[in-house]
């Protein structure tokens, strides 16, 4: 059974801040359709500064939202089903309208009954009716790979932190990943090569020479060249004038 409705794009939320300063109506439309990953607590605590405007929570604009929760309860309201999702930070009721020409409320109930107690990924537009928040045009998809839960929360945290104007220090960028061949100082050779290229890119417009890297790190030119090629392959640097000098992306 497929409950997805085509909102599998997780990246939408990142574009929020860039476009929200534009007053042009077409640009505003774009902002309004971006999808922001959030926790249910953020939805419940968000406020709407202007009627019919975007909701806001801690400087993050919310319009289309995505969240993750356990499917806890379903109620038959004849023309619609009220589905309660909960993620530990709060609970929210999502209304799914029943299209009588296609299916019946009982049929839809049976379909959703089977996903009770499972994790689902939900997207929709955040709206407010007489002070009650609701999720319109909701799509509900069962999560098969539960790493999605971790990734969703990490994305929500990332967007929240960026909206507060806090920049993530470069060193902690790779926190989640194990560095290959980490040296005693905790940095891998690749990281150290990259650091030298980054530090010198601004002043050496024709590229940071391989010889400079090898001298700095006390390694042979060939070793430095090998590291540079590896960094080119991962897209972090590129060859400048020739393959003896590199610039950081």
């Amino acid at each position, binding site marked *: 059974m497929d409950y997805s409705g085509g909102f599998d794009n997780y990246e939408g939320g990142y574009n929020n801040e860039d476009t929200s300063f534009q007053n042009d109506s077409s640009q505003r439309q774009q902002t309004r359709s971006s999808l922001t990953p959030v*926790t249910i607590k953020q939805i419940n605590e968000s406020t709407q500064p202007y009627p019919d405007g975007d909701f806001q*929570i801690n400087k993050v604009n919310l319009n289309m939202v995505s969240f993750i929760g356990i499917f806890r309860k379903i109620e038959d309201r004849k023309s619609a089903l009220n589905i309660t999702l909960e993620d*530990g930070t709060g609970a929210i009721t999502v209304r799914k309208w029943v299209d009588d020409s296609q299916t019946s409320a009982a049929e839809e109930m049976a379909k959703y009954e089977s996903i009770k107690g499972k994790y689902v990924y939900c997207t929709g537009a955040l709206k407010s009716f007489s002070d009650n928040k609701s999720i319109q045009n909701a799509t509900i998809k069962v999560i098969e*790979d539960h*790493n999605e839960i*971790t990734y969703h929360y990490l994305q929500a945290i990332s967007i929240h932190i960026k909206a507060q104007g806090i920049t993530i220090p470069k060193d902690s960028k790779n*926190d*989640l990943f194990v560095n290959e061949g980490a040296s005693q100082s905790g940095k891998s050779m690749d990281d150290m090569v990259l650091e030298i290229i980054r530090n010198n890119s601004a002043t050496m417009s024709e590229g940071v020479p391989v010889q400079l890297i090898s001298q700095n790190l006390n390694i042979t030119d060939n070793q430095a060249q090998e590291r540079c090629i590896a960094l080119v392959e991962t897209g972090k640097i590129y060859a400048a004038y020739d393959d003896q000098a590199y610039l950081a992306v």
Partner: protein
Amino acid sequence: MDTTDTRIDGTLLQSNQGKIVRIVGKLDTFDGNSGILQSNGNVALDLSNVDSNIEVNKNFEIIGRVTEGLKVVVFSVTDISDNFNFDNYYKLCKFINQVPELF
């Protein structure tokens, strides 16, 4: 389910005594009423209130209350897929503490 809980791993049991928590881990042992969940350390579970299908060596998310003896009395169990990356999860548990605005 109007109550909220904190997502943790085994290392954060001590600081969440008496609270309702949510832990993802791999079930190491299970004898009908109790079990051990591995989640960055061993978590002793009281599973006498749970009637879900529970299997050893599978991943589960449990919701329960941490007792004074650091045993978790489980209210609810949810299946988690076999490919779950626990290293990422342990990192997430550390970050969650730092953003109370979200969790």
